[in-house]
């Protein structure tokens, strides 16, 4: 029984084509599948459906299959040194869509001194055709594809064909049994989605693809070939050399003609020696995190990155250090002192409090991590510190720190009825109090984490989302650890000094680091917004103070409702509301922060980082120094003051003829985020010295000294300062 009708209108004279159509129609359109072949001089091509009958809502696999004349080849999406990829233009009924071609793994085709990426003998190009749910059952689906391809041996011939499939529809689909073997064999030639995320980096005239594989898997890899999907990434004809170390397998080859991109996709074909036999497996790789690894069938042992434990351990250590930061320390100190006042509390109560506190911290970090990963998955160029790239968030953080400071200063005491997240830390010892203290600690910690955690989180973000999330949790665990230890080991708490008047004095003193943090955040805001923004933020804080004052005004008969009290509360809440509204109205200034910072007392020493200008300077063979910074990055500011403003630094720059680019990441900037990602970073600071004539870039440490920078500049330029100034 014939269930599928096929027709073809191959290339040729329009009259002939017309005649063919007329003939087909006269014959009742009863062409057989085997006839639906476009035969050109060098290729026999046909369009094949995986199903004889389709159903509404189906994702139908449709294949353009080419049988190629012996010795000739057609091309992959990146054809290599010459050639043109096969292209399909779909002509589909309204509501029906076709996805991109699922390219099988190509092979290198040597043509004299050149190398192409393509297919010999035969190739199947499968695309998914999506049938809408509301497709009327019984109406046949007409799929028309116009395909063009270039087929070459030594000479090249452009060829094309038009293919039409008429597939009946029914309530349930029906597989085309005769084509199953073909689809299976073509799918076997397709790469599987890699569960590892390789990184691509340019080093002088080399480009290196690093595959994070376990030692065990890496030692089994005997051959590897990287096929980038974009032209210009690698020199297609250059040999690819593999090396192994503890971080995995590296494929090094000669760089292509374009700068190494931050974003890439491609295929890595690996040959693994396992149990005495060679296994070939190709992986679809990209810089982005892989999608659900469901379809990965074999070799999933190849997917666990080895350095995860290292990342997690350093994240925990970083979290512990956070306790000493000026944003967090006062709050933690007060919390610790609460023990002294509640010395009578039972151990069980303490432990519950500690666990609740830990839960508060972890939940906050999980939310923060989820937001960051979601933004990243959505294609946003974000990195760690993103929470400080938004003036609204900066303003709200300043409010929270200011309020915490006011509380320590004794401006207001929080009793149970005062709502506000976690402000009850000193007076309440309940579970919810501890939980919200944890939340507060995490919230006030965020401005401090940005500069200090950038590297650890940056590495984590290049891993899978699971590893990245684990890193955030580890960071939170580190933050919570000292307090948790205090609750679990009562011996520690007993070592704390006896309560007394000194506690009140200390509490008041601890308010000042919080005011300093507040002032710093307002300064950050000044870089992102303008004078108006600073005024609005300060006004908001005054309104906060007003709200507290109104709330705390003495009442004649406490606890008894009165008109005056109602009015007081209403005004207080209104002041609070206006204050928050002011924060939400905060907008990023139109003038990019880059120009503000770069123009800042620099006397034209540096210029703002612009990818095109950077590429041009590199292309012109100039040595380049890059400084990626942000207003909210304290480390960056210290480095700029200490190491990047002195006479010796300026001398070294001008002696070496350096072009100095300063990238300002205070606000979001995708170009800077991409460059950071090139160096496995998700945050600032980053300092890179690029030697002249396209030499290999050198990354400087995150803490600089002037002599270190000057030395790096001199060794990159090969010029020793003629009159050393230090």
């Amino acid at each position: 029984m014939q269930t599928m009708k096929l027709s073809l209108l191959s290339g040729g004279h329009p009259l002939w084509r017309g005649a063919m159509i007329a003939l087909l129609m006269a014959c009742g359109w009863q062409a057989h599948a085997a006839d639906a072949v476009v035969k050109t001089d060098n290729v026999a091509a046909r369009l094949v459906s995986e199903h004889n009958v389709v159903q509404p809502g189906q994702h139908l696999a449709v294949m353009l299959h080419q049988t190629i004349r012996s010795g000739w080849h057609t091309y992959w999406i990146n054809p290599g040194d010459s050639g043109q990829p096969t292209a399909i233009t779909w002509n589909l009924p309204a509501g029906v869509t076709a996805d991109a071609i699922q390219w099988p793994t190509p092979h290198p085709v040597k043509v004299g001194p050149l190398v192409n990426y393509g297919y010999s003998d035969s190739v199947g190009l499968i695309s998914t055709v999506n049938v809408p749910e509301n497709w009327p059952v019984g109406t046949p689906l007409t799929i028309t594809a116009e395909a063009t391809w270039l087929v070459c041996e030594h000479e090249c011939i452009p060829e094309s064909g038009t293919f039409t499939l008429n597939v009946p529809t029914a309530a349930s689909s029906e597989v085309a049994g005769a084509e199953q073997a073909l689809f299976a064999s073509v799918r076997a030639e397709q790469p599987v989605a890699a569960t590892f995320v390789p990184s691509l980096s340019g080093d002088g005239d080399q480009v290196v693809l690093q595959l994070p594989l376990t030692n065990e898997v890496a030692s089994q890899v005997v051959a590897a070939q990287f096929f980038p999907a974009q032209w210009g990434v690698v020199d297609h004809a250059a040999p690819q050399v593999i090396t192994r170390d503890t971080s995995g397998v590296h494929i090094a080859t000669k760089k292509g003609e374009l700068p190494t991109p931050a974003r890439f996709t491609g295929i890595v074909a690996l040959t693994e020696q396992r149990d005495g036999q060679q296994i070939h497996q190709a992986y679809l790789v990209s810089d982005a995190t892989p999608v659900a690894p469901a379809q990965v069938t074999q070799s999933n042992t190849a997917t666990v990155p080895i350095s995860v434990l290292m990342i997690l351990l350093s994240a925990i250590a970083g979290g512990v250090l956070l306790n000493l930061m000026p944003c967090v320390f006062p709050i933690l100190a007060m919390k610790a002192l609460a023990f002294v006042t509640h010395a009578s509390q039972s151990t069980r109560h303490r432990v519950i409090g500690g666990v609740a506190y830990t839960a508060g911290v972890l939940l906050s970090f999980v939310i923060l991590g989820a937001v960051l990963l979601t933004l990243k998955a959505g294609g946003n160029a974000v990195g760690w510190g993103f929470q400080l790239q938004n003036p609204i968030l900066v303003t709200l953080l300043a409010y929270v720190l200011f309020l915490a400071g006011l509380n320590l200063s004794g401006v207001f005491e929080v009793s149970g009825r005062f709502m506000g997240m976690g402000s009850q830390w000193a007076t309440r010892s309940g579970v919810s109090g501890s939980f919200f203290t944890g939340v507060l600690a995490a919230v006030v910690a965020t401005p401090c984490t940005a500069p200090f955690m950038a590297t650890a989180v940056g590495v984590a973000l290049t891993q899978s989302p699971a590893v990245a999330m684990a890193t955030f949790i580890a960071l939170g665990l580190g933050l919570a650890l000292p307090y948790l230890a205090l609750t679990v080991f009562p011996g520690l708490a007993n070592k704390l000094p006896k309560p007394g008047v000194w506690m009140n004095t200390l509490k008041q003193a601890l308010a000042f680091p919080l005011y300093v943090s507040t002032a710093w955040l307002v300064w950050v805001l000044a870089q992102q917004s303008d004078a108006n923004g600073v005024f609005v933020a300060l006004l908001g804080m005054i309104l906060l103070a007003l709200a507290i004052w109104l709330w705390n005004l003495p009442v004649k008969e406490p606890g008894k409702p009165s008109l005056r009290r109602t009015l007081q509360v209403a005004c207080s809440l209104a002041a609070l509301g206006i204050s928050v509204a002011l924060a939400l109205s905060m907008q990023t200034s139109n003038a990019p922060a880059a120009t503000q910072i770069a123009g800042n007392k620099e006397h034209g020493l540096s210029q703002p980082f612009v990818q095109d200008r950077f590429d041009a300077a590199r292309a012109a063979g100039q040595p380049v120094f890059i400084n990626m910074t942000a207003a909210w990055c304290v480390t960056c500011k210290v480095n700029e003051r200490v190491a990047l403003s002195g006479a010796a630094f300026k001398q070294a720059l001008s002696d070496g003829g350096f072009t100095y680019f300063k990238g300002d990441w205070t606000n979001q900037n995708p170009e800077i985020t991409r460059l950071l990602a090139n160096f496995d970073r998700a945050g600032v600071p980053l300092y890179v010295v690029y030697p002249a004539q396209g030499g290999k870039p050198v990354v400087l440490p995150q803490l600089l000294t002037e002599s270190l920078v000057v030395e790096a500049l001199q060794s990159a330029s090969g010029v020793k300062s003629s009159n050393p100034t230090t």
Partner: protein
Amino acid sequence: MQVTKLIARRALLASVALLTSGIGFSSLTSAAAPAIGQPAPTFKSVDSNGQAVSLDQYRGKTVVLEWTNHECPFVKKHYGSNNMQTLQKEAASQGVVWLSIISSAPGQQGFVNAADANRLSKERGAAPAHILLDPSGELGRLYNARTTPHMFVIDPAGTLVYMGGIDDKPTAQPADLATAKNYVRSALGDLSAKRAVATPVSQPYGCSVKYTS
């Protein structure tokens, strides 16, 4: 600590890769592939009229190099539509020196003798300043020319300012010319306006150059 580890890893990796690949790359790097912003490799050649041509003699003038093969469908796309000839004439009117280069080896597609080269030019109304015959492929390899067409633009100071495709539509279909952005035309425009060339590198597309293998 993480940073130093990363740097150390990079350095180790790079040195290992360099050591192990030294032999593989030495032949390539010694060929000094042409690079944007660098002096264009100089050459001496003979044109289809037997006249000696060297790159140095055009110092002070902009030079366009066009690799060609009259039998290649991609070249036909640009000559059949008069696209290439129009650009050649535009260039000539601006004082730009246009050199068409044929690197097809004897017996390979596109190989022609001097007389045939001149006849083809006349028939197609082409207007290059010279046609350079490079059957040994020496000149082609010097510029790492890979496709026909493959275009290079050299500024009056002798610096390479453009290399790549003739335009941004890498197909053999003449219909695509209508919407294509011609990179050579815009590079010449940038040069005469004393601007930096906006797109200095693009994907060269077409048939492979038919070198002796």
